[in-house]
């Protein structure tokens, strides 16, 4: 597996790709906070936020629908909010019988449900765009500049660096399990659920030991090369006037969205 198998970065030449990673992180977070703060049913403001998202998509040259295609990941979670459809009092829109429960969808409930979904959908798209236009190591570096404790960013760097190595290890373990799990056509191989869980547990234990011993070797190799507890980068990450300008512009736009949502 290649070292960047997990990276969602898309190499393109655009001014958004060239922005300082700090700027991108800050704007993303402010955008998400703004979405959460918008009142229910602020359709115009939601539209504005979407416009900003479209503009960011367009300027990053990934195509206007880039984040839209990938934004369905948060959809299953919508199930958890479905109860608001019925629980908020309001004008009844639709009544139906589900098994033994009589359910009534109210207008206020529908409004709240739609608003929750839109907020979540807008926010997840900006987060998708963030990793599509920023290399992950740059992102971690930005977090360090933004005062995330060094020990955490270092752990995250190691996690990112060794994830694909250990994933290869997992594939080897899974391949070994599959090659030992032969079965005649139509018949099931292996034991019951408990037996299968135990096999999976032993694999996790095996993976743990291999990871643990590997971390020893990694540490020795790093010490031999001068590691003393801190990772250095050659990337200077300096804020340019372009970065300040974009930040100001984005914040102004988000601020206007907020005003529009409260009119």
């Amino acid at each position, binding site marked *: 597996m290649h070292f960047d198998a997990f990276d969602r970065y898309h190499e393109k030449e655009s001014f958004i790709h060239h922005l300082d990673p700090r700027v991108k992180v800050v704007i993303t977070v402010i955008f998400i906070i703004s979405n959460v703060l918008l009142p229910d049913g602020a359709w115009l403001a939601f539209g504005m936020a979407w416009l900003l998202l479209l503009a960011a998509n367009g300027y990053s040259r990934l195509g206007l629908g880039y984040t839209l295609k990938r934004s369905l990941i948060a959809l299953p979670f919508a199930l958890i909010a479905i109860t608001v459809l019925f629980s908020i009092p309001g004008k009844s829109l639709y009544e139906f019988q589900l098994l033994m429960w009589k359910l009534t969808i109210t207008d206020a409930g529908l409004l709240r449900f739609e608003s929750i979904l839109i907020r979540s959908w807008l926010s997840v798209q900006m987060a998708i765009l963030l990793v599509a236009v920023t290399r992950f190591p740059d992102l971690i570096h930005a977090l360090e500049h933004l005062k995330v404790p060094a020990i955490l960013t270092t*752990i995250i760097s*190691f*996690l990112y660096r060794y994830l694909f190595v250990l994933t290869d290890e997992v594939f080897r373990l899974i391949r070994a399990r599959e090659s030992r799990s032969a079965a005649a056509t139509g018949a099931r191989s292996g034991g019951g*659920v408990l037996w299968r869980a135990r096999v999976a*547990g032993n694999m996790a234990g095996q993976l743990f030991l291999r990871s643990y011993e590997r971390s020893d070797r990694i540490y020795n190799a790093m010490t031999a090369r001068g590691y003393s507890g801190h990772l250095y980068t050659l990337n200077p990450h300096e804020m340019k006037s372009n970065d300040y300008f974009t930040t100001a512009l984005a914040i102004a736009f988000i601020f206007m969205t907020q005003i529009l949502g409260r009119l």
Partner: protein
Amino acid sequence: MHYSPEPLHIPDGFLSLAVSIVCWVISAIVIGMAISRTNKSLGEKQIPLMGVMAAFIFAAQMINFPVLGGTSGHMLGGALASIVLGPWAGMLVMTAVIAVQALLFQDGGLLVMGANIMNMGLVTAAIGYGLYRSVSSQSRGVKLAVAGVAAWLSVMAGALLTSLQLWLSGTSELTVVIPAMLGVHALIGLGEALITVSALGFILQTRPDLLGDGSDSAKASRNWVYVGWAVALVVVLLSPLASADPDGLERVAIDMGFIDTGLSAPYEIIPDYTLPFLGETPISTIAAGVIGAVVVGAILVLLGRGMKAKS
């Protein structure tokens, strides 16, 4: 890529700003404590170890086992990480895992990351380590059984906290979200318990030194026993009280005729988390919770014995 989203990862937009910020503050304080403790007690050598262990937790979540009709179970890892690495290091490792899941895979939001870290990283580590530590000098079978109960309870604690946060944000109905989340996670937690127990059994057998005297796992303060049991107790006591106490939200639901038929999830073993002979009181629900935990414990003790006999 080979990555399946978890039902516990809250996306952005589902929690209100106030709830998100409160959770971030709590998580940040605990993470800060974890950082200062690990800086004091661990050397620079531990940083690569924690990093690779975080990658391990991430990769171990890809090891799945078929359960029923296409669904498969796999591990969340909070309890195992804290048992093997000690509570503070376990918390940092889980924080890194959850941060990468949110940043790289958008599994869980950024603003709500504090809540996700609290639910899946901090509370799971406290319960996992605290309960395990209280029996760390006992026999192998007891250790494994308690680790299993701890793993199960840690998943339940995460589910309970997630439900409460969703309710406080006005996203879900308390009376529905708690039974639904706890019901689903009672099953998910069983998978977690089984994998944690067999992984731990494997480690105890091949590298007992990693968990013996002088290991990172044994070094942490014994106070964790109280912390772990206190959090576990809160889970067992709070889940029934939260769903049995008729608060404003619930009254609204009753007024609308939504729950007068007694909404119960079809997968509950103990109906409505109450015992028939005790009636619909909080005590009955608490008893049901305790019985559930004891049953899981008993199953795991038997399993532990069986595995010991075989190995």
